[in-house]
């Protein structure tokens, strides 16, 4: 079996964690062929970002504090792994880079990516050392060395997928065939001219699925500190259970919920080639985790896989007689919000066209209100911009929703029995999920009620 194992930041938080990961690789490296992808150590990317920004804004000793923290953390780990000087060259290069940014007092997206890339380079060097300590013959690659090529959109670079897959197969394939375990830096790659880029959304998971696709892996294992995807947040629903097996489209629907879900972009290389992705917990390696596959038919009678809650949202409703039958109102609304960098979480408009409701995160609610007032009220395109704070959005996900008559009745029946008012509803035509808004305070209670009704206590 050919496996790709990707370790997240919490799984690589310190030397002890690294050794645990190395042992996990070793346990498979004997019988299977394994390629490893490493994230930066937990919190390091944030620290690097702070370092870059402090350096660009003139320093005053702040960059030194960040550098010292980064040095301490990584040198401790190197020491614990028995090679104290391991990271000195990398850390020195990082320091020179920070000095350069401080000297020009400017942080471009390109130099930000250069700084961020050190997180994965450092962790990969440490994991490589830990693997050697565990007796696993391994070889370290940066994303660039592995052959991953992207466009030049720094901070959110798009891979040239065919080229990256071809080159990664050329570089990693022979290593694996020779019995070595390649360790690849997640998240980072390079342009065709060799300038370091970062993959942005999807990050290291994206690297893992690209490497998996290049090597035609049998499975891609995403290791983190959770047991897999859950049917609900266990802090809300005590009876929440681990999802054994879901489909790629369902995983895409769940991507917005929970920090450990995979970004749809990262799922794509695996989904297109039908390579199963398994999400596992390094702190509970015996657990089966969640398997994401092409086909995961719902069990007989199974309607929903999972119930999710977005606590901190607000609704904005735009109304006005002028909107009715007028072509382009919605376009203007979305245009206005996008110009202000506001992300729309949910959209709802009835066929009467008398009102459009959008949901945005609480933090962007006031900015959205201001933008729409200027963009729509002043121009007469709409009459009112109504804001509803303290709203929660509940999403019900599962392929069993599709084509099952009476699902909506059961779903909203359960909400009605709790005497809670549904403020807005949205359902995509894929029918893989239904989202609706309720008062924030009622959110957890409704999640519990729906879990009981649709999934089982």
């Amino acid at each position, binding site marked *: 079996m050919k496996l790709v194992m990707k370790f997240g930041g919490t799984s690589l938080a310190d030397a002890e964690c690294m050794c645990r990961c190395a042992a996990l690789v070793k346990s498979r490296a004997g019988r299977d062929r394994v390629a490893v992808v490493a994230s930066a150590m937990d919190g390091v990317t944030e620290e690097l970002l702070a370092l870059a920004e402090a350096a660009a804004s003139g320093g005053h000793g702040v960059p030194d504090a960040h550098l010292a923290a980064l040095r301490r953390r990584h040198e401790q780990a190197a020491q614990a792994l028995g090679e104290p000087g391991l990271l000195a060259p990398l850390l020195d290069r990082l320091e020179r880079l920070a000095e350069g940014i401080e000297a020009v007092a400017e942080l471009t997206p390109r130099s930000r990516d250069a700084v961020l890339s050190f997180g994965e380079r450092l962790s990969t060097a440490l994991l490589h050392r830990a693997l050697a300590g565990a007796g696993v013959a391994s070889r370290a690659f940066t994303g660039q060395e592995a052959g991953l*090529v992207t*466009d030049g959109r720094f901070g959110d670079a798009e891979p*040239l*997928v*065919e*080229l990256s*897959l*071809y*080159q990664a197969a050329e570089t990693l394939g022979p290593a694996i065939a020779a019995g070595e375990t390649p360790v690849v830096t997640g998240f980072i790659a390079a342009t*065709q*001219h060799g300038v370091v880029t970062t993959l942005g959304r999807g990050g290291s998971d994206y690297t893992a699925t690209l490497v998996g696709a290049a090597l035609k892996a049998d499975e891609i294992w995403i290791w983190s500190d959770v047991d897999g995807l859950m049917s609900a947040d266990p802090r809300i629903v005590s009876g929440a259970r681990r999802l054994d097996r879901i489909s790629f489209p369902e995983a895409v629907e769940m991507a917005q919920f929970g920090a450990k879900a995979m970004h749809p972009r990262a799922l794509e290389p695996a989904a297109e080639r039908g390579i199963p992705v398994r999400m596992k917990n390094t702190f509970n390696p015996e657990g089966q985790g969640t398997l994401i596959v092409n086909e995961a038919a719902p069990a007989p009678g199974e309607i929903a896989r999972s119930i999710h809650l977005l606590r901190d949202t607000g609704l904005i409703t735009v109304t006005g007689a002028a909107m009715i039958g007028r072509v382009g109102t919605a376009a203007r609304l979305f245009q206005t919000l996008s110009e202000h960098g506001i992300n729309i979480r949910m959209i709802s408009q009835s066929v009467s066209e008398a009102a459009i409701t959008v949901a945005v995160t609480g933090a962007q609610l006031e900015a959205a209100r201001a933008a729409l007032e200027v963009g729509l009220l002043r121009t007469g395109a709409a009459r009112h911009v109504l804001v509803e704070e303290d709203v929660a959005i509940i999403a019900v996900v599962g392929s069993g929703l599709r084509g099952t008559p009476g699902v909506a009745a059961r779903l909203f029946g359960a909400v009605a029995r709790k005497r809670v008012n549904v403020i807005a509803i949205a359902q995509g035509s894929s029918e893989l999920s239904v989202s609706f808004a309720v008062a924030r305070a009622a959110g957890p209670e409704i999640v519990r009620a729906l879990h009981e009704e649709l999934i089982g206590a």
Partner: protein
Amino acid sequence: MKLLLVGYGVVGQALARLLEAERAALYARHAFSPSLVGVIDSRGAAADPRGLDVAALHEAKRSHGTVGALPIYGLGDLDPIELIVESEAQVLVEATPTSVAAPGPSIARLKAAFRSGKHAVCVNKGPLAVALPALLELARHNQVEFRFSGTVGGGTPMLNFAQECARGDHVTAVRAVLNGTTNFILWRMALEGETFHAALAEAMRLGYAERDPSADVDGIDTATKLVILANGVLRRACAIGDVSITGIRGVTREQVERARASRHVIKLVAEIDHGLSVAPREVPADSPLNVPANLNALSLELRTGGDVTLVGRGAGGPETATAVLRDLIDIWHSIGSTP
């Protein structure tokens, strides 16, 4: 249009001669005046931004074995990748001999051309056999043209023909004879009752087969062309590893006889339907694929248009050079028409 030519063997020299011979006609018909600003061969290079003199290039190659020996414009052993990136040429012509086993250097040159904003014409099948989707993607990313019509059918425009057929219709199956050498051998076996080895010897005597004929007789060359067809025309991303390949070494006189008895002939057939395969197969004697000597034939089954076939000579230096010229004119028109 300024050209950088890599490979100064049979095809490269034929191209240089053809560009000279057609100079007036190309200008009259297409307002196209190509000039060779650089030539790289395996041992050296020559460059002149005003255009190199073809007669002098030939002389240097003939007497010293490399264009690097050209007086004044000859260059010692420079890194070809650097030369490609730095060159003021607008188009790279990759005319090195095909090597499926080691396509790396050729791929590196094409990548260097693309990333420095140059269009490319390639007649080396090696890079296309293993990395065509990647190269097409990289050319698209850099907004440059990538043409390789000389790789299939040589001078016979088989890829363009197939592309035209596929436009507005669906290619449901492809069956083709894509290798002249093996077709000649099988044709001789049927015509003269020769054994495989006798027919191969005759092919070598006539210069149809190379001294090491394995790429031809083992089906590798045919499979490579099939991969190019599948990627370039059917938009099916694949590489040579995806083709099931059987050569013609195992074809016996008895099999050829038996086929003849039922009015069939044995051909090395490249086929795309559900999968990709290259193997000796019996085809009816009246099939359009039953072409004599070293000819090639490409048959497409179209959902609406029915069966269509193109027959022509598949290889040869001058023939392949015309294919390169065709690609260059194409690029010339396409860059001329973009605002």
